[in-house]
């Protein structure tokens, strides 16, 4: 067995023999599970799922910063690394053993959290266990790198605690670990896009609550892996066996490049779209049952269509749209739907309505119409209309919502999209009136493009009632 594995296994044994370490490794996360699930989620299983990601992120952060990182500094200050230095092992073995021990301790904690969440709060596990394991592995690796980088640049325990506190509280409050991201001001949300905990929290939530795939969060995973690798390289290169060895200011400055992946990711996420809407969508989902394939979310729950994150669900939704061309120009105009990526506001997917308008016989104008029928469930609250985000070719489009009752007006709106995502709202006054038998009534949402011949593209996302 290689030395680092032996040291790691011994470290785990030492944790098992230390009451304080046992408490913080196993019991403390369980206490927080009860706090999150009881106070924040109020026992609602869907909300427990929403807060499970932040909870696991909190646990990973805690063990990385206050366990792994601070332990390294403490061992150096105490002088217990000196004895290892006399043996034929290098800094790499020491760093790898810390990482391995930290990871191996993380796994039973995670299992315990899942077990307790399911037993005590009936948390539905809407995630493949392997995906959960990958998320935890990548998160642990990334934050271990972060914790070890801090331990590498701090010359004393006091210094390490100061650095840890600054990073800890920033991540704790500004990255969705405690306060849900949609509840933060817009400016803070933009800042949150630069924080690694945000990537882990939002990936957990999008996968566990929004039903998205891990692949859709490959960018976040990649950034976490890169930063973790950077952290380990710094920890290895800057490893010090003795407290008398001080780190140079130059080395400290070099270690700042640890944040480069976060900066790139932050700018990319902020540029990519409106993060707030994506986070809001996941946030709103925690109060409704999970979507099933082919059944759009009901308006009562705030979202008519989800943002097509689940490929199977997207396929079924595509079939629900009915595309028609003008009867007097059959076979000439064309229209179809497809799922594109990325979507609006930082979501992974959107819907694309595209095709070609051809002039009808004797006319230089044609049209293509797409209709989406849906029903309002019983007990739907008063609503004011429907909204969605669009972008597309600069030409006239029309949106209409047709009620089941032909005596009621069908609100129509004409708009011209451009290359940027924009929110369009279509008020429908009759939505505010309780319908005596709403669940039987079919409404139709319709997008229409007409005008001179030519290709058209309209991207649609975040269709919801307001």
């Amino acid at each position, binding site marked *: *067995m290689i*030395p680092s594995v*032996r*040291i790691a296994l*011994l470290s785990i*044994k*030492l944790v098992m*023999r*230390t009451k304080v370490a046992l408490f913080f490794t196993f019991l403390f996360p369980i206490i927080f599970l009860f706090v999150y699930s009881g106070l924040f989620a109020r026992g609602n299983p869907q909300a427990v799922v929403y807060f499970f990601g932040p909870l696991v992120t909190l646990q990973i952060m805690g063990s990385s910063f206050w366990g792994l990182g601070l332990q390294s500094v403490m061992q150096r200050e*105490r*002088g*217990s690394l*000196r*004895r290892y*230095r*006399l*043996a*034929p*092992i*290098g800094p790499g073995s020491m760093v790898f053993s810390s990482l391995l021990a930290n990871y191996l301790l993380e796994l039973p904690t995670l299992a315990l959290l899942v077990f307790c969440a399911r037993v005590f709060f009936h948390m539905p596990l809407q995630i493949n266990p392997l995906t959960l394991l990958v998320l935890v592995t990548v998160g642990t690796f990334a934050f271990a790198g972060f914790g070890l980088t801090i331990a590498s640049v701090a010359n004393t325990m006091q210094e390490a605690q100061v650095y840890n506190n600054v990073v800890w509280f920033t991540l704790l409050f500004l990255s969705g670990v405690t306060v849900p991201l949609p509840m933060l001001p817009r400016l803070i949300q933009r800042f949150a896009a630069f924080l690694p905990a945000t990537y882990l929290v939002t990936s957990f939530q999008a996968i566990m609550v929004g039903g998205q795939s891990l692949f859709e969060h490959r960018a976040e995973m990649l950034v976490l892996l890169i930063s973790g690798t950077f952290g380990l390289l710094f920890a290895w290169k800057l490893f010090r*066996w003795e407290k008398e060895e001080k780190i140079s200011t130059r080395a400290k400055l070099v270690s700042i490049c640890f944040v480069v992946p976060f900066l790139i990711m932050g700018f990319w996420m902020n540029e990519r779209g409106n993060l707030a809407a994506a986070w809001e969508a996941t946030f709103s989902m925690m109060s409704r049952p999970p979507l099933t394939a082919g059944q759009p979310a009901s308006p009562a729950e705030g979202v008519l269509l989800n943002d097509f994150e689940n490929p199977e669900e997207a396929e079924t939704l595509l079939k629900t749209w009915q595309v028609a061309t003008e009867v007097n120009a059959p076979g000439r105009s064309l229209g179809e739907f497809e799922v594109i990526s990325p979507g609006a506001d930082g979501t992974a997917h959107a819907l694309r309505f595209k095709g070609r308008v051809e002039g009808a016989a004797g006319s230089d104008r044609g049209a293509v119409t797409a209709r989406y029928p849906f029903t309002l469930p019983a007990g739907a609250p008063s609503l004011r209309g429907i909204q969605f985000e669009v972008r597309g070719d600069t030409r006239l489009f029309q949106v209409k919502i047709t009620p089941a009752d032909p005596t009621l007006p069908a609100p129509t709106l004409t708009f011209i999209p451009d290359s940027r995502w924009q929110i369009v709202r279509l008020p429908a006054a009759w939505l505010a009136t309780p319908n005596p038998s709403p669940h039987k009534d079919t409404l139709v949402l319709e997008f229409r493009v007409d005008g001179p011949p030519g290709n058209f593209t309209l991207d649609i996302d975040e269709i919801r009632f307001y």
Partner: protein
Amino acid sequence: MANDSNSAVVRVEGLRKRYGDLEALRGITFEIKAGEVFGLLGPNGAGKTTTIEILEGLRQRDGGSVTVCGMDPGREQTALKQRIGAQLQATVLPDKIRVEEALTLFASFYRESASIEILLEQFGLAEKRRAFFEKLSGGQKQRLALALAMVNNPELVLLDEPTVGLDAQLRRDIYALIERFRDERRTTLLTTHYIEEAERLCDRVAIIAHGQLIALGTPRELVFHSGKGTRIEVSLAKPVSPDCLKQLDAVTDCREVDGRYFLHAQPAAVAIAALVKFLEAEGNTLLNLHIAQPTLEDVFVEMTGRRMEN
């Protein structure tokens, strides 16, 4: 440990080390032969630990050349560590590690390792094999540190003040262990600031002060060549000037401490005859006379101008 006694296991030439403005080592040169127990003797801050840590590969030298087991400790640390065993001035291990676990863990780092059972027996730790490090007494911790130095059955053992802070009985226990190293013809370098330790354990001693090597040889050679001669301690009925006693035949030095006079003489018989004659002439009376051979401590005081405890 079978070694060729003519070969030098450690070779140090013009070793220099600086910590900022402080020149800790100013060109030290010595050799340690195979199978030898070699002592580095000097007060605190003399440069002993710096020297041993450079030999262990824990510190980089600023000048000079060092060869340990035929290797440069500054460049071939990993290979060298396979062949040496070292004990630090203070060994700290995790509080909750058991004695047996510590030995097993550290033994696993080496290509060749000694039997843990034998080490536990040899170092008197068999009964404490399940004890946590935090529960061990100072002497037991020191014995464990020595046992850890032996886990790879090393060719060269480097011991940094192995008995510092221990009481007399524990020191004697450690002496017995080091004497075993000598019996096994295992090359040993130890640093100490206890004279009795160096006299008792070391085949050869190097005295270091202010980063310089000021004497090198067997304890007997150092005393013989010290030029101090026999020490004569006398008490007189009436006080006299030490300068008067210094003028006597064969007396090389005289100091007065609390009414007693310490004379160094060579040869002693001539000095005593001259002293008796002087006292008769002065009408003084000799109350007490004690003759002693000089010790390593006397040599050290002579060479460094201060006592070890200082």
